[in-house]
Structure formats: C-alpha cells, structure tokens
C-alpha cells in the first residue's frame, strides 16, 4: 500500500519538481549540459523574460479579469437561482429544476453554442468567455442542496422583521453561507483561469486572448517565443534563452495562482463539496 501510493504520489510530483528546478537554470548552463536535472548556476533569466513579455502579461490580465469578474457574476447568478429553487413554496420550482437537470443530460453540441455566441454579437468580446459558462446545472443543484440545509427559522425570523426575500437572501443567508460560497467561488475561479477552448473559438484579437491560449501558442512553437513576432525572436536569440526553460517558466507562472489557492481549495472540497447530493 505504502509503496504503491508513494509511487503514484512521486509520479505526480516529480514532473513539477523537475520543471520548477530547470526553469531556474542559467541559459549558459542549460546550453552546455545535455541532461540537466538540478541546476548549479541559478538564474531567473527565463522569468525576467516572461514578466517583460507584453503579450504574456496581457493575457494574464485577461485571465485575471475572467477569474475575478467571471467568478463574481457566476456566484451571483448561481446562488440566487439555487436559493430560490431551495424554497419549496416557490411555484413552478419542479418545472425549472427539471429544465436545469435536462441540460445535464442533453447538450446540443459545439456548433449551436458557437452560433448563439455569434448571434448575440459576443464574438471577439471578453464576455464570450464569461457568459456562456456563467452557471451550470451541477453547481446549481449542489448549492440548492446546501441552502436547503439552512434552518428555516433564520428565514422566518427575518421575514417577521419585515425583510423581503431579497433582503433575507443578502443579509441573512449569504453571511451564514460564506464558507460554501467561497468554495464554489474557488472552483469557478479555477475554471475561469483555465479557460482555453472558448478563447480559441471566440477570440481573434491578440490583446484579448486568455492566458491558456497564449501559453499554448508558446508551448507549441519553440521558436516563436512569447513576445510579438520578430522583435521577441531577436531578443530571445540575443540573450540565448533556451526555449525549454522559457516554456517551463511560463508553465510555472501560469500555474502559480492555482497553487496559491490550492490549500484553500483543498480544505473545502474534502469537507463540503462532494457531500451535497446531485439528486433533485
């Protein structure tokens, strides 16, 4: 048991460690060492280059915007819907729930989704990366399950004091649900940060490309580097930055925000997230 699990954990961890270590190798050492596992000459040259690269940093900004604004919008839309549906007195609740559940079973496919984004005039807009994935049946159902667990007395006493449902939700329900909402927020945030294919499909303007798209272009093409065209290539040659260490640094920088929130994520998904049932 211990052996097998250690093996699996090591297989998971080693590639990351290798990439972190080698990304800090100095370009000259990397050039003369055929197999490099541990750098002797440390250097942040690759990182300096990444952080000075206009297109890479701009795409980080785009994905940062997605992760913050997209997550905020997603939480608002998902939690209000889930709360409403968690109140059994709401007439029409079954129909709406059924409609939401159906979207889990059947998906018309990529082309209709693409056509809708086009139809709404969202092509090449950053909102094309947010609006289509604003909510999902799975999260609505999980959150609804969570809101149902909150004792009804809380709502009743607030109602007694003359609060409307909107007031009850924002002043009473949201404050007691902060841990759960934060957990959902982290999951949405990671999802938005990792936005990739929507960026390939909907964004044509270089300045609006999300991080994962720019990262992929960079990983795919060793010679292109991260900068814009020839200027960057010239710089890269001049500084003799090996494309591998640049790619490694880019992978690490792109993953840093995830690693930064990971300890919080872990606290939530182990305890609360999976306990909610998907059943309607």
């Amino acid at each position, binding site marked *: 048991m211990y052996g097998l699990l250690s093996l699996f954990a090591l297989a998971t961890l080693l590639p990351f460690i290798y990439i972190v270590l080698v990304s800090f190798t100095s370009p000259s050492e990397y050039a003369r060492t055929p197999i490099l596992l541990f750098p002797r000459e440390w250097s942040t040259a690759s990182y300096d280059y990444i952080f000075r690269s206009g297109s890479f940093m701009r795409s980080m900004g785009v994905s940062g915007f997605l992760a913050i604004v997209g997550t905020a919008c997603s939480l608002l839309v998902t939690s*209000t819907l889930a709360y409403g549906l968690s109140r059994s007195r709401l007439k029409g609740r079954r129909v709406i729930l059924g409609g939401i559940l159906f979207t889990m079973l*059947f998906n018309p496919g990529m*082309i*209709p989704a693409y056509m*809708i984004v086009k139809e709404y005039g969202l092509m090449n807009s950053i909102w094309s990366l947010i609006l289509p994935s604003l909510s999902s049946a799975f999260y609505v159902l999980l959150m609804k399950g969570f809101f149902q667990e909150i004792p009804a007395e809380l709502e009743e006493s607030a109602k007694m004091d003359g609060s409307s449902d*909107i007031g009850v939700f924002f002043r009473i329900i949201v404050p007691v649900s902060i841990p759960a909402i934060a957990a959902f927020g982290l999951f949405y945030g990671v999802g938005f940060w990792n936005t*990739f294919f929507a960026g390939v499909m909907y964004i044509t303007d270089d300045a609006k490309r999300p991080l994962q798209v720019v*990262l992929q272009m960079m990983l795919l093409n060793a010679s292109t580097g991260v900068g814009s065209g020839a200027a960057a290539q010239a710089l890269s040659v001049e500084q003799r930055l090996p494309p*591998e260490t640049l790619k490694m640094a880019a992978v690490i920088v792109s993953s840093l925000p995830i690693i930064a929130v990971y300890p919080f994520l872990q606290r939530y998904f182990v305890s609360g997230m999976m306990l909610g049932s998907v059943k309607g």
Partner: protein
Amino acid sequence: MGDWKAAIRRDKYLYLLILPGVLYFLMFQYAPMWGIALAFQDYSPFLGFWHSDWVGFEHFRTFILHEDFPILLRNTLGINFLNLLFFFPAPIALAIMLNELRSVKFKRFVQTTIYLPHFMSWVVIVGICYLILGQGEGIINKIISDYGGDKVDFLTNANRFWTMLTAQSIWKDAGYGTIIFLAALTGINPELYEAGQIDGANRWQKIRYITIPGIKSTIIVLLILRLGSLLSVGFEQVYLMTSAPVASVADVFDTYAYRVGVQQGNFSFATAAGLFKSVVGLVLVIGADRMAKKFGEEGVY
C-alpha cells in the same frame, strides 16, 4: 391561474431573485437548442436561419454513410474503452489503498499531492507532458539518447496514442476522483470490519467482502454517468494532444464538428455530427439508468 397570481404576488422577490439564473439557462443552455434545427437545414450564413433550405435528415444520412464516420466511431470508442478499463477503476483502487493507511500524515501527503493536477489546465498538463516525454525537448528522451538508445516517440506514435491519453487522464484526474469514493468509504459501518476481524478475515477478504460492497452503489452511479458519455472524449485533451502523426487515431466527434463546422464553415453538417453524438449519449445514459434500476440499484435520475 388564480393560484399563479397569488403565488407571484406572494413570492415576487423570490422570482426576481431567480430571474438572472433562469435567463442564463434560457439564453445559453436552451437557446442553442434552436440551433439543432441547423442540422435539418442547408444553412448558409448569407441566407441566414430563416431563409435557408430545409433538407430533413439528409445531413445525418450523409454523416453516417461518410467514410470519416467509422474512423470517428472507432477512435471515440477506442479511447473510451481504454478509459473505462483503466481510468475508471484507478480512483477506486487508490481510494481503497488510501483507506487502508494507518498513518494520517502520510495519507494527507498523498492526498494533497495527487489532487493537485486536477486543477491544472489541459494546456499546462500537455505542456508538462511534452517537456518530459517530447522527442526533442523531453528529459526522458535526452536521458535515453545520452545512454546511446534511440529516442522514443511517446507522444507522436499512432500506435500508443490512446494509451498515452489514458495514462495522462490517470495522471491528471485519478487522484481527484478518489474523493467521491473516500466519502462513500466513510459511510461503511466500522462494526462490519470488527466483525470481520473476529471471524478471522484477512485484509484482502475485508476489502473484498466489506469495502467493495460498501461502495458498490457509488461505483454503479458513476459508471452510469460514464456510460452516458461513451461518445464524448475529453475535448481539450484530445485537441491539444493531436499532431499530424496521430491525426488518424485522434479525430473524435467533437474535434470533427469543430473542424468541419467552425473552421470550414459547414455548420449544418457539423451540427448533425454533434447532434448524433448528443442523442446517442442521451439514449445511453437513460438506458444505463434503467438497467441499474432493473438490477436493484438506485440509479441517478
């Protein structure tokens, strides 16, 4: 009608609260369903939706009889079959092993490590894969050639492409997949293990007769969900891993729909191809659910 008026008057703020969410589902989940109609048209962007000709099931017929169809079906089923065989049981095995651990510290370390790749994007995962296994830049191949061996085309060999995808899926998501089984494992009554102990059951017998039956319904529920997506393949993964040498074994329904529809502008044909997949998927998941219920399990829907 009167009921409705009273309900709306009483709960008007509650309806207001769910309005954005309902609008979202209507505008972005249900509105695309109109796009299904494209599959029955000869859609032309110049004529638009309302003026394009209706052609009935012609695109479906063309698609199913098309020479690409058997290739797409073979690739999709091949990848999914390997997934079902190796990727599906992996989290179950890992969870059972984790459950057997006595050392809390070690367990936590393993969990922390193996959950991490799940949160990385496919771009990062595939990028790491190339940096480790790639033919030019991969460290493994550098070591092999340094010892005088021939470089191995791990990522660009059509014969191992499906295996590669499965291994990659296990590396990224098997760890995270253990969570749901670990949760199910906590639901097993500890007295069963004590009873097993008294009856002289060894560790394997306890796993076989207590642990596995204890998580059987979770396994079946997840298997049903898995069967429902038998025609879907992790799109971003396949899209990112595709390169010229493996193109013939990497083309699946979604990549095909993307290429033919978005890139070549054959919207109607691509919609039909996508819809074929969705409809079969719906039939599969409902079928699997019925089947599970027949065998006395709870089912999902």
